[in-house]
């Protein structure tokens, strides 16, 4: 069995009209499932991944051989208990883990799409994943959940399909990408595009990889996922395997070495063009746009019970932005709970072992499930 055979794929036949105007059809959507769908089909949870995530949320990722990105939260007896719930996770379109993306072959040119791939949006990602409900014949999901860009997809899903999820847990996210968010993403994109190997996006046909640019993009982004206090505590000014400064541009400090390592392992598992496309989708995300700036209107028709979670040290998607979602829901009398979890682990808190967070998710899910079953 080859590596790619380990990826389950749904071939979506139905045409999907993208926000950019193009229509795609017969495209692959890679997904993974955990747990068992019960006879009533009322225990399904759709998990949305963040920028560099994929469908392998739990267990060992068969392609990278690394732990799934949400191993702390998702699995048997964990916060999202796969002994109890049937969890579906898909790779977003534009991604690079088997779903339709820029490294796929363009049937017209017989070469990878590269930057001829259409620009996609969070709305497009969610609409593509909706096909999984039809595929599994699930009338209504028990829950939609995700952090960061996954949280944006949660919000978009409920807005698009107001009666298709009993509960929704948007975590550490925003309803509208801020100027700071866009600026940081643009920094990453410019880093990739400044790499000579990027070749205007057609690097694959020339057997090149803009690894340096992608690594720097990852390094910059990685800083935004951590907090100042967390970095200071973990690294401080500690030196990397040396007694004193070397008066050179080597990685003297542990933090430098750590970031270089993060950059170098990232390029082995992620595609540079996917990075461009997915960050673009995040920047274009503004759920209020269609509703004249009024976020409440995005949720007017929904009967979903929300639970919004933010983290104290997350400065990328701070509590104030998560609170905007809560305020918009309260303004129209929707059922919404909210908690800000104390953690010094920054935006990445939702991916890490933060017991207060994991317990809160577990309790919310289990108590909500009692009510519907």
């Amino acid at each position, binding site marked *: 069995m080859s590596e790619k055979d380990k990826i389950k794929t749904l071939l979506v036949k139905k045409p999907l009209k993208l926000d950019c105007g193009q229509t795609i059809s017969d495209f692959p959507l890679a997904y993974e499932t955990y747990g068992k769908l019960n006879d009533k089909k009322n225990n399904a949870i759709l998990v949305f991944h963040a920028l560099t995530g994929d469908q392998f949320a739990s267990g060992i990722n068969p392609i990278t051989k690394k732990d799934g990105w949400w191993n702390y939260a998702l699995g048997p007896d964990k916060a999202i208990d796969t002994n109890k719930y049937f969890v579906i996770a898909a790779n977003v379109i534009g991604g690079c883990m088997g779903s339709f993306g820029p490294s796929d072959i363009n049937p017209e040119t017989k070469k990878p799409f590269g930057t001829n791939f259409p620009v996609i949006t969070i709305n497009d990602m969610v609409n593509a994943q909706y096909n999984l409900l039809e595929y599994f014949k699930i009338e209504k999901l028990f829950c939609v959940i995700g952090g960061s860009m996954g949280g944006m997809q949660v919000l978009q899903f409920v807005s698009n399909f107001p009666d298709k999820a009993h509960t929704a847990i948007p975590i550490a996210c925003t309803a509208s990408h801020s100027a700071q968010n866009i600026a940081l993403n643009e920094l990453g994109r410019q880093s990739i595009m400044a790499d000579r190997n990027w070749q205007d996006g057609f690097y694959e046909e020339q057997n090149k990889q803009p690894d340096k640019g992608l690594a720097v993009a990852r390094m910059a982004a990685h800083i935004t996922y951590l907090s100042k206090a967390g970095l200071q505590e973990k690294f401080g000014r500690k030196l990397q395997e040396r007694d004193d400064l070397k008066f050179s541009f080597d990685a003297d400090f542990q933090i430098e070495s750590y970031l270089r390592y993060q950059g170098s392992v990232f390029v082995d598992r992620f595609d540079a063009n996917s990075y461009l496309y997915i960050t673009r989708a995040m920047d274009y995300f503004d759920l209020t746009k269609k509703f004249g700036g009024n976020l409440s209107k995005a949720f007017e028709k929904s009967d979903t019970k929300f639970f919004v979670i933010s983290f104290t040290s997350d400065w990328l998607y701070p509590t104030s932005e998560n609170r905007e979602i809560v305020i918009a829901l*309260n*303004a129209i009398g929707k059922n*919404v709970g909210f*908690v800000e979890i104390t953690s010094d682990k920054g935006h990445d808190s939702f991916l890490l072992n933060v017991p*207060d967070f994991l317990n809160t998710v577990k309790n919310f899910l289990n*108590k909500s499930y009692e009510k519907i079953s």
Partner: protein
Amino acid sequence: MKKEFYNIAKLITKNSKILDVGCGNGELMKYITENISKDIRGIELSKLNVQKCVEKGLTVIEGNAEKDLKQFPDSSFDFVILSQTLQAFLDPENVLNELLRIGKKAIVSIPNFGHWKVRLHLLLKGTMPVTENLPNEWYNTPNLHMCTIKDFENYCEQRNIKINLKNLKFQNLFSELGIFILEK
């Protein structure tokens, strides 16, 4: 559950829509959910208490009543409950106005500084009263704006706030707690 909560719960109409401001660990909300109305949610400042509410399956928002009530539309609840926290706010007048704006009715309870034990304590000992209901010393009490039942009634009268219920006769002298239903 403390007696105050049973008394508050008795005042609430079946299946009405309720907001419990400063809902603590959700004890009262849980009782109301199970016995009176499922359409209830809470606001709570303490993260630990918010998590205790989630454990009970209650809908709760972490927030501060002084800042976070403005997000609710006018008359969006049949009852808004505020149990023994009015005196701890920086601006109780504003909170009271907000309660009466978002709730058709507000149920407010206050520790009564006019209770005979409190009066006697100050009269005989000459120090700030410390009682079962007011257990803190002057330097660490969260209570910034203590009042008596009479003070509160006078206040409501001045502002044309209707008081629909007073808990007991001779209340100002003999009640440690005043529970009121208020309407604009």
